[in-house]
């Protein structure tokens, strides 16, 4: 399997927030950390989410090397190594890195890695009514987006 990515077609996001709640439920998160978020700047909607950057600033900023990249190109965090310094939260240019105060750790989008192993896409993409959250192997996605 090649590298995989998640892309949100911003112009087709209509701000229903279903992705946010699906993500919360999937990751059992309370209020506070929002791994995916849609900001309403009427009349536009701006999805904020982890891009799993090629050169991820969060990963580079982490003094404990708690953030790493797996073979599928997913940027993941080992929460047990996190010391809660929040350097990654500050480093992320998208505002996607989140801090879970109750547990004093950084948390981030893991592309629902547990679902992928079961052949499902991320929870956010599964519920989107306009199907503007697309997911799959990076090369194919870029072809589909016509963005190469």
């Amino acid at each position: 399997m090649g590298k995989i990515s998640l892309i949100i077609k911003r112009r087709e996001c209509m701000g229903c927030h279903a992705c946010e709640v699906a993500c919360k439920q999937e990751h059992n998160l309370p209020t506070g950390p929002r791994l995916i978020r849609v900001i309403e700047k009427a009349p536009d909607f701006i999805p904020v989410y982890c891009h799993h950057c090629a050169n991820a600033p969060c990963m580079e900023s982490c003094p404990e090397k708690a953030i790493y990249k797996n073979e599928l190109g997913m940027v993941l965090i080992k929460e047990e190594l996190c010391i809660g310094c929040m350097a990654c939260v500050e480093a992320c240019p998208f505002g996607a890195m989140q801090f879970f105060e109750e547990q004093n750790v950084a948390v981030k989008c893991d592309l629902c890695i547990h679902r992928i192993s079961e052949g499902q896409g991320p929870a956010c993409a599964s519920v989107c009514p306009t199907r503007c959250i697309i997911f799959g192997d990076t090369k194919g996605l870029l072809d589909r987006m016509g963005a190469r």
Partner: protein
Amino acid sequence: MSEIKKVRTVCRSCHGGCGVIVHVKDGKAVKVEGDPESPISRGSLCSKGLSILQLAYHPERILHPLKKVDGNWKRVSWNEALDITVENLNRVIKEYGPESVVIGQGTGRDYESHLYRFANLLGTPNVLTAGHMCYVSRVGATLITCGNLPVADYRGNPRCIVMWACNPLWTNPDEYKGIDFWDAYKKGAKLIVIDPRKGFLAKKADLWLQLRPGTDGALAIGFLKVIIEENLYDRDFVENYIHGWGPFKERILGHSLEWVEEVTWVKRDLIVQAARMYANTKPAAIHWGVPTEQTINCTDCTRLLTALMAITGNLDSPGGNVFYVPPNVRKVSDFALHKELGERAKKRLGGEQYKLASRVALITPKVAWEAILTGKPYPLKAGLLCGTNPVVTRANAREVYEALKRLEFLVVIDFFMTPTAELAHLFLPAATWLEVNHVADNWKRHGFVLARQKAVEIGEAWQDHKIFMELGKRMGQMWWDTVEDALDYILEPAGLTWEEFKRIGYLQGQMEYYKYREKGFSTPTGKVELYSTILEKWGRDPLPKYTEPPESPLSRPDLLKRYPYILNAGLRTPTFFHSANRQIPWLREIRPHPIVEIHPETAQKEGIEEGMWVWIESTRGKVRLKAKLNEGIHPKVVVAEHGWWFPEIKDPGHGWEISNINILTDNSHESMDPVMGATNIRVLLCNISPCKEV
């Protein structure tokens, strides 16, 4: 470790009917996900449905009956609660007659059939619902015009879609989910959006008509005028299937496009362009939303839009606006036993005045509040309100509050202790859709029934259907032994039992188009009555017209100095369903505050900044909401969310007066639709100012 059991069911966090798979472990629901095999939602699920576990297992949810003793709530058994209810209802019936009991529901948790059966067998014609200004009003107006509700036929591939005052992907979608709309749009259908607010769809539209709130009827007249004058209508249909074409045509042509532009604020070129696009693109569907109903023009506007569908030949044609064929199950109206009411129907409050409301078996709330407060024409003494929070959701909230306080006996069925429930003498805990067995969506006109089946049981909550059944049985009414026995009765014509239906999941009616060619339309003349013989018989104008809302810049210029802005008091948002969900953490995090949208220029002029608390004041009072600047609305219009109260405020009012936009709305008889009693909540005059007190 115990296994996860998956239960396939149907959401009811709005009217939706989206398919859901519930994961259950050790008798507890642990996860919900969209059902990819649902014919309605095809896997999508909204924020409300996805939050159901936070609602169902909310620490403040009430899971056993409560009675009020010396101002405090005290836990009682179901047995005692039912006894108290029956005793009080019987006392009132004996002293004042059954019509002195009002039965109310909000937008409903799909128990209309059972609620109406209970009311009809009790003998009260006074059923108070949201239907006077939401959906049922549209059904009523189309029943008298063309015999049924015409629904946009997305499955028939419309090539042009007119989204008239609706944003179905964002908020509640009545008959159809936004999914079908979106697919039709993505297949390349042209899109015309009619909305005072530039929402997501307005941005996507080929043409966006930003009309002045409340003037939809006038805009429809503009469309009709262009289509008639330019001979863009379907001659064959008009000649054979329209009643009253001559006088209707004359009425429409009596308006000039200059007048339409002046009234609607939409440039006449744009009206011409949109009307041509709608009339020349076949097939074309109109998808309408509640703002067309929530003004004095409710019935007329529905009739004008029906006229557009009819004269363009789009009625009951594939991809147009169709009458879906329901599956062969017992209808809600049959189950509800409306006929049992007999002569008592004549006692329906406001029945003489609001004849269309009476035709669809409901009362406008105003007549209930009047009867409670004045005893005229006769007193209402007891109330049973199920899943409704009228203190927050009905026009003229202060009158609602005063009226409900005066009832001798009020029982409320709900999940949480709402401001309305706090006024009750008895509270009965209702089941959420996770805890319900029902043949769902039977009341809708989209051609499906769906199996909503119980995934879990929580506390002592009962599904609403069971509450009506058990109350009814104690009052000597004819019901069934169990909820499921009643479902067998509903399913009997299909030759199925509930157990069998559960496994199938849904039934769909066999669609037939152009049914009128064989059977005509179900109206007195058998035609589409643009000239309504029924309205004529009622002594009303048989032709549709546009009436200026009674509190608008045109009708009340004298108020403009003090109240210079048009208040649209009905913004719906994706996370909340009317007054519901304010206590759900995931949803409240997304929309923590009540919002009023203001154009940036207007905000600047009034000294208001983004995020600031703002006073909104009408002649009837003032409330505060938080400013959100939106350049997609007209500078003279402000748009406020409705349904706000604050569960986190623990006193019995729960902050119902703070941001409740219905404190500002009007429910005077003069302001309502003359035959339906629809309240006007889309056009008022207001002023806005920074709120420095908070």
